[in-house]
């Protein structure tokens, strides 16, 4: 089983091409030198806010916490003309409480992590049952984790079959496939896993960097590797896959640099929350703080913004 791994990996890399680590990190660093000012900054901040999957994924989450999260997602700020976030992201057990808080027709989607998030270490039928339950309870979107063990062992068929099974279990719901980049370690692996996932998901489904539950999360460089993969897949097949970096994006400035990467790699068609999301909790308030600063010229103290997604 393990002996097969280098062979299938090589075969796949020959097909999709490899990534040079130094080069991709140099490219990513250039996004950080873009200077986003005045009206373009306001537009970027609002766009980023509209792309947030406002997230709470804690063992101590309660219906009350989820309700607070939903209210914040619908109306992030009292005065600003700030759009609602794209979605709230919660554990499966919280989906029905989120649905109750948001109502049947809501501008904010409900995303549920599933498939034994974050490890994925449960039998497939348990994982699929979890997906089905979350969808039945009202989830619009499912954030699954890939079987990293299968990927690293070179069992690509198994990894892809499991994703395909989750696609089926999703029904109408949008699927986001978490690669957990920190466990894949190399950019070559991230590119390979992106392609394996993209080949079995549907137009409009996402690939996503991380669970946020490991040490290393989204970076501009692994975001770039995945954007490059999405571009190649799109130009090859015409199927537009969406992207969600998650974890570690805490400041508005960071978010703007991620958006520059999208603008310069995939272009205007991906500058929408149907094709790009931020998995984040504290990011939203920093976006709001910057927006207030743009309007009034002064920074407000952090406590003037309602806190609904923190890990307190």
């Amino acid at each position, binding site marked *: 089983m393990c002996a097969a791994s280098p062979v299938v990996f090589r075969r796949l890399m020959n097909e999709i091409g490899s990534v040079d680590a130094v*080069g991709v990190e140099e490219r990513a660093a250039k996004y950080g030198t873009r200077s986003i000012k005045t009206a373009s900054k306001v537009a970027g901040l609002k766009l980023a806010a509209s792309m947030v999957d406002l997230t709470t994924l804690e063992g101590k989450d309660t219906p009350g916490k989820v309700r607070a999260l939903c209210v914040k997602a619908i109306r992030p700020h009292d005065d600003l003309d700030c759009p609602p976030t794209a979605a709230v992201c919660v554990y499966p057990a919280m989906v029905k409480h989120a649905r109750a808080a948001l109502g049947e027709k809501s501008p904010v989607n409900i995303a549920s992590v599933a498939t034994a998030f974050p490890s994925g270490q449960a039998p497939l039928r348990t994982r699929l049952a979890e997906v089905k339950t979350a969808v039945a309870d009202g989830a619009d979107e499912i954030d699954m984790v890939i079987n990293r063990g299968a990927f690293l062992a070179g069992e690509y068929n198994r990894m892809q079959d499991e994703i395909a099974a989750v696609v089926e279990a999703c029904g109408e719901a949008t699927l986001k496939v978490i690669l957990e980049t920190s466990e894949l370690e190399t950019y070559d692996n991230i590119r390979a896993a992106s392609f394996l996932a993209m080949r079995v998901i549907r137009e409009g489904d996402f690939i996503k960097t991380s669970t946020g539950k490991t040490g290393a999360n989204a970076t501009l460089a692994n975001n770039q590797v995945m954007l490059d993969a999405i571009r190649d897949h799109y130009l090859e097949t015409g199927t537009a896959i969406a992207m969600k970096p998650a974890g570690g994006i805490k400041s508005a400035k960071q978010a703007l640099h991620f958006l520059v990467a999208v603008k310069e790699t995939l272009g205007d068609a991906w500058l929408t929350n149907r094709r790009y999301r931020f998995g984040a909790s504290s990011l939203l308030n920093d976006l709001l703080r910057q927006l207030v600063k743009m309007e009034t010229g002064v920074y407000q103290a952090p406590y003037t913004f309602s806190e609904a997604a923190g890990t307190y």
Partner: protein
Amino acid sequence: MPVAAPKKSSRRRAEPELIFGDLWEFDPAPESADPKLQDRYRPFIGGKFVAPKSGKYFASINPGTGKPLAEIALASPQDVDTAYAAASKAFPAWSKLPGAERGKYLYRLARILQDRAREFAVAETMDGGKPIKESRDFDVPMAAAHFFYHAGWADKLAYAFPGANPQPHGVVGQVIPWNFPLLMLAWKIAPALATGNTVVLKPAETTSITALKFAEVVQEAGLPPGVVNIVTGAGETGAAVVNHPKAAKVAFTGSTDVGKLIMRSTAGTGKKLTLELGGKAANIVFEDAPLDQAVEGIVNGIFFNQGHVCCAGSRLLVQESVADAVLKRLRNRVSVLRVGNPLDKNTDIGAINSKEQLDKISGLVKAGIAEGAEMFQPKCSLPRNGYYFRPTLFSGVEQSHRIAREEIFGPVLSILTFRTQSEAVEKANNTAYGLSAGVWTEKGSRILKMSTALKAGVVWANTYNKFDPTSPFGGYKESGFGREGGKQGLADYVKLT
């Protein structure tokens, strides 16, 4: 088959394309630091700014706007003579100064350059047209780095050349080009001073300002008068610098044509000579290369500093099996390059250095079209005033096309293909030049093989346009001789007895 094949769509759809439009356009983000320019600059001779004997001045144009920036003195041969007299007078004391003391002066120059980095970056961008992010992140820090590096050598020359007795030449005449005005000055002056020489330097006529601002730094650092002299003007002034009988060594960076003239005029005079001239570098992409990073390197190789780089990767040699894939990526990448106001922090490609250079580039591009190469330019808009040129890709270029042979010195890439490694080597070396080359492959052994097969002074592997003061830079064939940087560069400024 472990990998599922892509699903075939039954209905035919249009070729998928990416849209690089203005959905989220960036607002201007100009760098606002004061360049502290004077209205009029005079030659720097014997530690003072002195009026030129000719009494004449010429305008230095800001290529970003086309408007005059300052008046620069036209130094006559008499002024050059005065400068050599000052340099000769300063030489005995300067060369006998303990190395550690000379080193202190060099460290001081480096630190002052760092302190005034933003001011110098803005001045460099206004005078030469390069994007502020390049002068800010590359030119000025790298100039300071060269002074720091050579400051370290000043008291260790005996260790640099074991068993030899390194002695300075005397007065060194130096003529530098307009593409990296301050950095080329640093490459020339730092090793000369570290080894105990004194200098007479002439910057290019279109970009004299940062050299004269550097003269202010020399004053601020308290260098003994006459150790550094800067004379300004065009070709006639340059000829006077090169041909002056007191010049013990001549160092020139610039065009091959002028290099040949200098070689002729210095022949038989006993003057030491180093030349760093033109190039037509091959950037070679093999089929196993990481393509996105190779594309990034290609872009960095040819569009860095508007392609005004002697080691620019102006000939792309790409293996036929990946030629289409590379070209497709390259077109998308070039479409998001931002051309415009050099002072804008988001500008990737600034202004062409002069009207003359813009005409030369346009002429060669017309020749490329006439010879049948296929041109691609992104649809970006250009500022109304100033000298600008769109990044340009030529595919279907053949070895005999002018755009594959002549140095364009602009943002124009000529793309050729090859089938085998030996064909790549053959084509890469089929040029009068030999300054630099790039190799993109995942195979380490191929990198080693190529680095010896390519007749180029610098070979970059899986990267391009990387510089460091410790690394010698220089060419083969008509790209010149002598090295700058590293111990090898130091050796060109000493007599080994």
